[in-house]
């Protein structure tokens, strides 16, 4: 907790420039989700196929000019899944192959999403999903979450600072007992903010349906089609030829 609003890392990187950054978000979403689906559908033992997919992703990391330490740091999110996969050899028959396959699938999925989120500014990503006809309710919820996560993050660090300013020391046992009230306070504040945001929305003519996230035009260009068709051919050959 607390470091949430420093997500600056991913935002700064996503605001960068590379051939990957310049692709239409829709092309990236479809391509990378397609890749993840192919990876998930691979049977344990299709090691060449897994390796080829990983190679494609590493290639994208290079094209996107993402720094390896950054990518690895972002990927730490998968550690719990890897630990779970590492248990498989000890618990089920053929667990080694199964565990390796699960670990590879998780790694591929996470790496693909790291590439997607690190080469596409969040508002464009949302707009991409919206244009791909993702359910409006979901895109709107995610948009609000993303926006107010930053506001809440700031509120949390202010509260923590206030706590420290009054002589609080971050001993872990104490941390545990005083984090409860902090969360409770945060919950109340969020509730109140939610009410005020709703009033502000109603004041601007909100009547229950969100307008699209328009304001930015997007066009599929030749390079997006080139990217998608290359991707499709590569994935199809991996899926059909390699296992």
């Amino acid at each position, binding site marked *: 907790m607390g470091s949430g*609003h420093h997500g600056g890392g991913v*935002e700064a990187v996503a605001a960068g420039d590379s051939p990957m950054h310049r692709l239409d978000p829709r092309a990236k979403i479809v391509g990378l989700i397609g890749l993840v689906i192919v990876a998930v559908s691979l049977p344990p033992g299709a090691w060449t196929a897994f390796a080829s997919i990983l190679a494609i992703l590493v290639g994208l990391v290079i094209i996107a000019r993402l720094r390896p330490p950054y990518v690895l740091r972002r990927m730490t999110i998968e550690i719990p899944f890897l630990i779970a996969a590492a248990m498989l050899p000890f618990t089920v028959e053929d667990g080694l192959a199964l565990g390796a396959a699960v670990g590879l699938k998780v790694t591929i999925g996470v790496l693909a999403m790291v590439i997607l989120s690190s080469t596409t500014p*969040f*508002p464009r990503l*949302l707009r991409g999903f919206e244009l791909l006809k993702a359910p409006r309710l979901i895109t709107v919820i995610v*948009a*609000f979450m*993303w*926006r*107010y996560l*930053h*506001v809440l993050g700031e509120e949390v660090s202010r509260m923590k600072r206030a706590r420290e300013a009054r002589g609080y020391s971050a001993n872990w046992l104490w941390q545990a007992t005083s984090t409860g009230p902090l969360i409770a306070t945060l919950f109340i504040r969020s509730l109140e*903010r939610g009410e*005020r*945001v709703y*009033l*502000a*929305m*109603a*004041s*601007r*003519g*909100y*009547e229950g349906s969100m*307008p*699209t*996230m*328009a*304001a*930015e035009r997007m066009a599929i260009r030749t390079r997006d089609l080139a990217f998608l068709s290359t991707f499709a051919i590569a994935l199809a050959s991996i899926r059909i030829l390699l296992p």
Partner: protein
Amino acid sequence: MTGASPPAIELTDVHYSYPDGHNALRGVSLWVEAGERVAVLGPNGAGKSTLCLQLNGILEPTRGSVSVCGIAVGKKHLKEIRKRVGVVFQDPDDMLFMPTVAQDIAFGPSNLGLSEKDIHARVEGALSAVGLAGMGARSPHHLSYGQKKKAATAAVLSMEPEILVLDEPSASLDPRARREFGGILAGLSQTIVMVTHDLPYAHEICERSVVIDGGRIAADGPTSDILGDAGLLAAHDLELPHGYVMDHH
């Protein structure tokens, strides 16, 4: 009243009590002409913010009536009212809820059902009106507090309201942002109702002031007269900053 244009705002004996029984307004009558700039002054808890929310129908009077540009504020005309009355809330984070500033400014015009081309023009117009031209693609959390305040104002201006209602416009602004924002407000042609306890700010922007205390109007007149009446200010817990000298413009 034939021939003359209706007042921008007309409150007739407005009473309001919150669901918890607190009587926030106890008979407020106020008449604001189109193009006037009125500061609503008063101590905390005087009913200032409650008054703001009456003006665009977020709250409805328990007794009395509110009308805006000759239209009675109520469920029936809510859409029309909200198009004419823009409210800038105190905390800009409450107003900027879309992923980018431009999308946020487009929110109001989209709700009005304008075409994409008109919305785009309004977004650009509103951005430059508040001095944020070219910053539409930014996310609100990448703006300074002063810029957020301007963006929130642009989000209201894009609806091209006839009346602008501002709740504590100078709160939490640093001196430079406060001055810049005051300049923006002074350059607008809208009728302005501004709730504040920043008395010099009221003096700078509004020619008329209304003092509200205990849910009633305690004084109404030219800002310089009201701020010059030390007894009146003291009676309603209002204070000019130490050393402030009134100049009459």
